[in-house]
């Protein structure tokens, strides 16, 4: 297997009295597509947010590109967009046009000159199939289109890792397909991705590896093919049975 891009080492995350993640260690290798599966409340979103450095940890650490990134003391590194994140609710900037949504971070963070930032944004919008929507505002777009803009916006910072938290769960089937197609493209470009999703067909087709979580633990960590054909744990088998219904 290739180099480890990011890993969590025994992380524990709790709110007041409830423990959401207990002693979770997981790794994602460069170029890999990892899908996180599990029932609602298993801690999938929290695990992803920990990878992104968005959560305070009670124990353990996150190591990104061989360097300590998060510990219980805090976040130790400015990512400057190195980890892109796509949210269930899109979170586009409503006051900016689609083009400026994509161009904002390269301009402000990387200090790319406006014309160049716009040109690059146009290319990314072409990539996600929205080249003809540059001047639109987010509220004029369908959910699927907004999510594709959000993907382009994250890609604009040339991240080494992309995290997707249920990117299609607020979309209807047609728009879900559009977004999954773009995600597929991103994976084919060689991007390392971690995806939380309930789209089993996507997981079957695109995942290299599945992390099955339940009650704040990684219960099963297996190559996708094996996970779907021969799940080891009873809980994973029960989960797959339910999802198939």
């Amino acid at each position: 297997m290739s180099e480890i891009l990011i890993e969590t080492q025994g992380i524990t995350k709790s709110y007041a009295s409830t423990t959401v993640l207990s002693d979770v260690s997981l790794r994602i290798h460069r170029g890999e597509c990892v899908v996180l599966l599990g029932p609602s409340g298993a801690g999938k979103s929290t695990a992803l947010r920990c990878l992104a450095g968005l959560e305070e940890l009670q124990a353990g650490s996150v190591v990104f590109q061989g360097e300590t990134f998060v510990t219980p003391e805090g976040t130790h590194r400015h990512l400057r967009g190195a980890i892109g994140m796509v949210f269930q609710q899109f979170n586009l900037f409503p006051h900016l046009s689609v083009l400026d949504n994509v161009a904002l971070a390269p301009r402000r963070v990387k200090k790319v000159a406006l014309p160049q930032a716009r040109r690059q944004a146009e290319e990314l919008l072409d990539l996600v199939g929205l080249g003809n929507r540059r001047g639109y505002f987010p509220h004029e777009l369908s959910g699927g289109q907004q999510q594709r803009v959000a993907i382009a916006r994250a890609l604009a910072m040339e991240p080494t890792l992309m995290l997707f938290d249920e990117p299609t769960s607020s979309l209807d089937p047609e728009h879900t397909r559009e977004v999954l197609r773009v995600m597929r493209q991103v994976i084919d470009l060689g991007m390392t991705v971690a995806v939380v999703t309930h789209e089993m067909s996507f997981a079957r087709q695109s995942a290299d590896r599945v992390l099955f979580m339940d009650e704040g633990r990684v219960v099963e960590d297996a190559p996708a093919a094996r996970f779907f054909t021969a799940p080891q744990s009873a809980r994973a088998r029960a989960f797959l049975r339910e999802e198939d219904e």
Partner: protein
Amino acid sequence: MTEVQLLEYVVSTAFLTATLVTIALTVLSMALGVLGGLLLALGASSRFAVLRGVVAVYVWLFRGTPVLLQLIFVFNVLPLVGLRFDSFTCAIIALSLNEAAYMAEIIRGGLLGVDRGQRTASHMLGLTRVQTMLHVVLPQMVRLVLPPTGNQLIGMLKTSALASVVAVQDLLLVAQRTAAGNFDYVNALLAAAVHYLLLTTLCTLLVHAVEVRMDVSRKAQRRQRQETRALVAEGGRR
């Protein structure tokens, strides 16, 4: 009441000058009040408890006492500690200190009204806190607070009349003096009322115009019209 006398007052140099004073009072106090309110609101959402406490006390103090009292206090007490200002400056100080307390609450609400996801997304894109504030949160906050700020502006136009009690030569004071001097209360006060009405109407229109300019859906409509025109023009050429 004679219409001619009323009109003469309305266009008289004394009333026009007084109107300018009222406008200056309103605009300056409002501008400083908004600025102060923004700083207070940022303080209220700060990580530091002491700062949050200071803001809470400030807001409690200035919203819990009459503006008129604050104005008279500034006018009479500042000289005692060696700070001497003319009455116009005193009025500006009192009105803007008071306004800042109200604007702080409005802006705080506006900041809370900007979805948390916006900050998370900005953070993940690598924007610093300051950049996020400047390019993401503030522009959205401004749109949210514009309507209540417009109301405050109109309120300030009328509240500025209190400055007449510390002898600022504003619309109300000039009207009162004219009235007393000519024994003509009806026309003099009506003349002031006409000016106030003109100003408040103007403010309402102005606020509406700014809202329209900032409204994203209007921008979208403008773009759609342009696109349609471009298409029609293209069709015509063929």
